[in-house]
């Protein structure tokens, strides 16, 4: 089993606060990994570090065995890493089909000038595959949070990535919506996509993740299958303070 | 040499007053008010008008000038910027046009010729063996009193802490119950007032001309970039860097090269350390 994405000894300080502290974990082909931890544990910061929004103070990030610390965000995305945002960030002036289409635009001025508007069919398919069938022409202001989360997912999928990092994709959703999106992810996994799912909601992750890592105060405190991790003493203490 | 030290100190103090307001507005609202330096001009001209054209006493003239510049800032926020806080492009364009509008208003009311403002305090005094006008010393003292006032306000008062909270983490601050609109109103009013004070002393230190706000504006940009947008400490330090650089250029090198060093440093800082000294 090859390690698709790996972080080693990742450390990031913001002034006096250590957000991520010597964190190491990896994700393998075909997995859905749960990145768990109480609020403020450093999960989003970890995503930002992997994406290149921040530079780590110490540590390496490896994609398919190659270090990507020096790469800029868009280069990492082109390699095959995508992410969704915890608070959806759609383009407010665009109908979501156009929003998703931007993910399919090639990073080349000449190709853009030549014009490839036929992507609309591809985008429609992706939109339908995440369950947005009759809502593709709507504007972000007209959609529910659940739908906006689907848009985020569609945008990530449209990038044709190897691994998608989902930041709190379940937060704020109804139980019904959570089940729908969960089923969606399992389906997408069949197409070869690998997911890192961040959530502080343990129940939502239960049917979904193969393996889990738990972090607290930016540091890894447990790793293993979902059941192992959930019954781990340190994890219980972190979540429930017992 | 001593002349540079003294004049540099004054210029830095005045620049600090102007740049402080500019950076505080950014810290609290994440917008830049390009007409900020124009309030300096407003304050200067209103002071001149009250004092020398109408004949009001110095204290009253100052109060009116500060009230006008503060009011202008408030009016800008309420009437122009508030609606488009989320759209920096529009804020830039509209505040820039406003700056020119204020410029023309001043030209129409008071004309384009330079005017001399009577010093606030008459006479000269000796500082370190060098003769200096008392006006300059007074300006220096008042500037630092105002700066000190701002620092105290920001550290000790509730509103000041609210300002810092908004600057550090906007969403968190709002969730904690801080009303961003009220804080914005207060911040804009204060920044306008500071600009007015600077205008009063700028006028008496140099002279009045409608284009007087151009250089201070460029310097404010350089200061906030060097010091870091949104940082008060950074602004104070950078104001002195820029102030001394300009004084040295003007007195020791070549008067015509006044803004060039500021520009060069701006670009250098942006390339090497875009956040500036203490930027957010």
């Amino acid at each position, binding site marked *: 089993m090859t390690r698709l994405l790996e972080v080693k000894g990742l450390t990031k300080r913001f002034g006096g606060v250590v957000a991520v502290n010597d964190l190491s974990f990896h994700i393998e082909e075909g997995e859905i990994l749960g990145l768990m931890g109480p609020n403020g544990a450093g999960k989003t910061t970890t995503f930002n570090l992997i994406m290149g929004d921040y530079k780590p103070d110490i540590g390496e990030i490896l994609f398919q065995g190659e270090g990507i610390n020096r790469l800029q965000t*868009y280069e990492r995305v082109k390699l095959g890493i995508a992410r969704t945002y915890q608070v959806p960030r759609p383009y407010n002036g*665009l109908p979501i089909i156009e929003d998703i289409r931007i993910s399919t635009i090639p990073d080349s001025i000449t190709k853009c000038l030549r014009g490839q508007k036929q992507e609309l069919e591809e985008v429609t398919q992706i939109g339908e595959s995440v369950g947005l069938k009759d809502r593709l022409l709507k504007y972000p202001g007209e959609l529910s949070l659940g739908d906006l989360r689907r848009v985020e997912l569609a945008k990530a999928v449209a990038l044709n990535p190897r691994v998608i990092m989902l930041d709190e994709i379940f937060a704020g959703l109804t139980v019904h919506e959570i089940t729908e999106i969960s089923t969606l992810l399992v389906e997408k996994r069949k197409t070869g996509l690998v997911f890192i799912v961040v959530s502080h909601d343990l129940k939502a992750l239960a049917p979904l993740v193969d393996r889990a890592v738990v972090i607290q105060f930016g540091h890894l405190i447990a790793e293993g299958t979902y059941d192992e991790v959930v019954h781990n003493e340190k994890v219980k203490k972190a979540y429930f303070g017992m | 040499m001593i002349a540079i030290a003294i004049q540099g100190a004054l210029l830095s103090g005045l620049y600090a007053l102007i740049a402080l307001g500019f950076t505080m507005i950014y810290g609290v609202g994440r917008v*830049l008010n390009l007409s900020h330096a124009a309030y300096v001009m407003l304050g200067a001209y209103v002071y001149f008008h009250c004092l020398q054209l109408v004949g009001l006493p110095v204290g009253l003239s100052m109060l009116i000038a500060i009230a006008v510049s503060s009011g202008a800032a408030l009016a800008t926020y309420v009437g122009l910027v508030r609606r488009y806080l989320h759209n920096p492009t529009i804020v830039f364009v509209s505040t820039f*046009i406003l700056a020119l509008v204020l410029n023309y208003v001043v030209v129409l009311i008071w004309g384009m010729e330079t005017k001399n403002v009577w010093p606030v305090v008459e006479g000269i005094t000796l500082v370190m063996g060098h003769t200096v006008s008392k006006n300059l010393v007074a300006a220096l003292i008042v500037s630092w009193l105002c700066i000190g006032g701002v620092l105290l306000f920001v550290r000790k008062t509730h509103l000041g802490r609210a300002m810092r909270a908004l600057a550090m983490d906007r969403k968190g601050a709002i969730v904690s119950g801080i009303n961003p609109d009220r804080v914005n109103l207060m911040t804009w009013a204060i920044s306008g007032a500071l600009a007015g004070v600077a205008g009063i002393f700028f006028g008496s230190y140099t002279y009045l001309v409608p284009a007087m706000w151009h250089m201070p*504006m460029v310097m404010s940009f350089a200061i906030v970039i060097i010091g870091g947008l949104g940082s008060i400490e950074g602004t104070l330090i950078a104001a002195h860097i820029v102030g001394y650089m300009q004084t040295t250029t003007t007195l020791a090198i070549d008067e015509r090269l006044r803004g060039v060093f500021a*520009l060069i440093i701006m670009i250098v800082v942006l390339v090497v350390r875009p956040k500036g000294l203490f930027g957010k």
Partner: protein
Amino acid sequence: MVNWITSIKSFRWWLIAIAVMSLLPLFVPSSFLRICIMANFMVIFAISWDMMSGYTGYVSFGHPFLIGIAGYVTAMLSSQGGFQTTHIVLPLYATMPLGIAAAVGGGMLFFLPSMRIRGPYFSLVSLAFLMVLNRLMIAVRPDMTGGDRGLTSLPYVVTGAVDNYWLSLSLMFAIAIGLWLVAKSDVGHVLKAIRMDEDVVESSGLSTYRFKRFAFILSALTAGIGGVFYTHYMGSISPSGAFDYIFLLNIIVSTVVGGMGTIIGPIFGGYFITFFVEYLRPVLEGAWRFLAYSLVALAIVYLRPGGFYAIAHDIAGWFRAKRRGGIQYDQVT
């Protein structure tokens, strides 16, 4: 290029506009044509500004710098007034490309570094630049640049109102259609997305710097073209004309009033402002005139930031709704 089928339909509007405007000299006196020539140049400057500031949202206050540098280079090299010590006088077909190159080169040298960084820095640097350059051009080497009076008696490309009108009109349409095609392509989409949320564009695997730089180069290139032709139409150039705030104000107001980020809007904005100022000239003098149209511009920015373009869109949508009696979904722009 760029999906010909939909473009041909929109092209018919361009063709109609070109036809109508080309025939203008047959019906109007040359004094009117001269105003139109100024308007054509204003449109060129406004469109070139819009390509950068309107689309990416990186408002450039240094546009007069680009135009002025181009103008000064071609002026200094093509006349006796410049480079007096070396007596270099080159023909226009040499000096004009050099002027354009100076605009692009100078722009890239001074403005690109600050464009790498997200935020207001680019705008601040560009404004500071203009202000400093204003003074510098007067002070530095007046023997070459003509000091604060500038350079005069420059050679013309063509003479006469009619010929100049057609020249400026062709330039205007060439630049407008060219930039319009770029804006309609995916490049334009990316630029507009950058204006809305640059981080997300970057997370979509696009190098925002590369796209911004492309927009800037186009902007500088077209500004340079406008600058050299304008200089050789006027026959002179001076710091107060080239690096002035009023010039900057005119460009910004034309674009904003017409509609930022549309390319087409500035065409109407440019004409509107030019004629507005011309007809105000006998009525209000100097500062009153500038005050008047600044206030008009401010009002439009505040009330309908999309400018004439957006207002026209609103009206068209209103008509469509009335005819069909229902709610319309907005067209994808």
